[in-house]
């Protein structure tokens, strides 16, 4: 499956949806800092992986997918929810990358400069996520082909 950019999707998002994400993102970043100040870095660190904007992002995915189907005269509710579910499945893979990022920061912080740690940790997140996503896609693709083959030869 090819990875591509769909820039027209930018036009579908309203200005207040961008503002909402900015506000949520800023608020959770401030909250993470305040929690760390109050209860220490042990508890504060948990909130560095808090799914802050996930509910609003998934709702937007559902809304856009539903609108797409409605333009063709269909209801689109089920398709919208499935699309949001796929988004969540992707986030599950991304969270494994998040574990890799946290491990990289934890282990490399005493050894390297902060900027180098940030770069290495971001690469760890990106590579882990993309590799697992790709492996899952190829495995599912193979399973799908085998299934289709079995059905065709029945």
């Amino acid at each position, binding site marked *: 499956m090819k990875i591509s950019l769909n820039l027209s999707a930018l036009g579908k*998002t309203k200005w207040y949806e961008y503002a909402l994400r900015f506000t949520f993102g800023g608020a959770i970043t401030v909250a993470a800092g305040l929690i760390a100040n109050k209860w220490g870095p042990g508890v504060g660190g948990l909130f560095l992986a808090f799914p802050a904007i996930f509910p609003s992002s998934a709702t937007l995915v559902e809304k856009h997918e539903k609108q797409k189907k409605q333009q063709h005269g269909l209801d689109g509710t089920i398709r919208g929810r499935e699309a949001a579910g796929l988004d969540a499945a992707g986030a599950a893979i991304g969270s494994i990358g998040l574990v890799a990022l*946290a491990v990289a920061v934890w282990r490399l912080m005493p050894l390297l400069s902060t900027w180098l740690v940030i770069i290495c940790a971001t690469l760890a997140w990106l590579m882990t996520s993309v590799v697992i996503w790709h492996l899952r896609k190829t495995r599912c693709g193979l399973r799908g082909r085998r299934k289709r083959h079995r059905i065709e030869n029945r």
Partner: protein
Amino acid sequence: MKELFIRFVVGGTVVSFFAVLGDVLKPKSFAGLLGAAPSVALATLSLTVLKDGKAYAQTEARSMIVGAIAFFIYSLCVSRLLVRHNLPTLAVTASSILIWMAAAFGLWYAALR
């Protein structure tokens, strides 16, 4: 107050950047990777090191491992509820935050406290 304002602006900008990237990328499951982008961590890491030092940031990162495992459990539950049971997205994603809370604090209490 100034520090909180900087955190708000940096956090909002980094989160928005990853969210926009998630909007334009296809297919959906790949764009979903950015749903678990390290936005807050990247936004705060350098600020934390500047203010509290490397040891503090290291402790935060160790706890973040647990938070990320909780995120994994959260997103798997959300995905299953949406795809298999077809429940409303906002209700599922918002109420499942309780799953993240339980997993994160439970694991932290068991492993790191």
